[in-house]
């Protein structure tokens, strides 16, 4: 209808029209927006998630470098550096997962355990710090999954064997029933794919940026060499 024409500049009319607009807008607002049903898989494939992960891992890498410089780099471990980066990558991935999945919680609790053990060697500490309790205590906040007491379905030995193998590959799933393992696997695979995309992007970014910088200490030329598995 033409009641809300912008040509009319009379204040009363515009007030009424704006009131009409507001009531219209209110009515629209009353209907709650349908909850965006982005599954966790779609989340991992989104650009935003990759950027969040990139931020996380860059921060972790920066801390790595700082700590590496503090310890006198008398014996630079080329092997250890890669492992440290890999651990930082998995930890950042688990952080980006926001602890909603089993595997992310397992990775984080593993990292905390190692850190505590390291600290114990330096100075004696209380054995059960509250941080450990909070991580395992999140089990209550986990969204409810159907628990299986006795699994009769898919009792084929072949399937069971493969699922056992699979559960050993995914962190934190060794003693979980079949549906849990399958669910964790799907999330884990998509998360790993995102991690690989992000790492490739970071490597090409660092590679191209460092090649444009004055080549004082450049010895290795890894730029442009991308071995991509995900086609």
């Amino acid at each position, binding site marked *: 209808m033409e009641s809300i024409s912008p040509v009319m500049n009379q204040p009363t009319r515009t007030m009424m029209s704006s009131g009409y607009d507001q009531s219209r807008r209110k009515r629209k607002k009353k209907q709650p927006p349908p909850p965006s049903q982005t599954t966790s898989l779609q989340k991992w494939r989104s650009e935003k998630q990759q950027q969040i992960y990139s931020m996380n891992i*860059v921060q972790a890498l920066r801390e790595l470098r700082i700590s590496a410089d503090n310890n006198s780099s008398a014996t630079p471990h080329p092997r250890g550096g890669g492992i440290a980066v890999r651990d930082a990558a998995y930890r950042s991935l688990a952080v980006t997962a926001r602890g909603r999945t089993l595997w992310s919680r397992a990775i984080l609790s593993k990292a905390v355990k190692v850190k505590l053990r390291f600290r114990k060697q330096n100075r004696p500490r209380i054995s059960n710090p509250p941080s450990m309790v909070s991580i395992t205590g999140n089990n209550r906040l986990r969204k409810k999954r*159907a628990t299986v007491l*006795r699994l009769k379905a898919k009792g084929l030995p072949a*399937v069971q064997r493969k699922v056992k*193998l699979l559960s050993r590959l995914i962190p934190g799933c060794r003693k979980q029933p079949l549906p849990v393992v399958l669910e964790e696997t799907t999330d884990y695979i998509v998360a790993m794919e995102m991690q690989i995309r992000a790492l490739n992007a970071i*490597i090409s*970014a660092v590679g191209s940026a460092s090649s444009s910088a004055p080549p004082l200490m450049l010895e290795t030329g890894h730029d442009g060499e991308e071995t991509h598995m995900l086609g």
Partner: protein
Amino acid sequence: MSGRRSRSRQSSGTSRISEDQINDLIVKLQQLLPELRDSRRSDKVSAARVLQDTCNYIRNLHREVDDLSERLSELLANTDTAQAALIRSLLTQ
């Protein structure tokens, strides 16, 4: 995810998870795998095959992440300006 629970009509006495749900999960898994994704003949691909391929794929992914993190650590170790470059590149993305 709660839709899964509503579909457990055919729960035999002891198991609360039905074959249907497990098959659903396996089909979902199959669609993630790059090799089995194109051939959508889900009837012909057995669950064992899907699981086996999943194990292989995850092992490959692990290996690729290890490889990439090795390369990244080498890159970071070799260039002093790598940190600034990293941050700069991420800011300009």
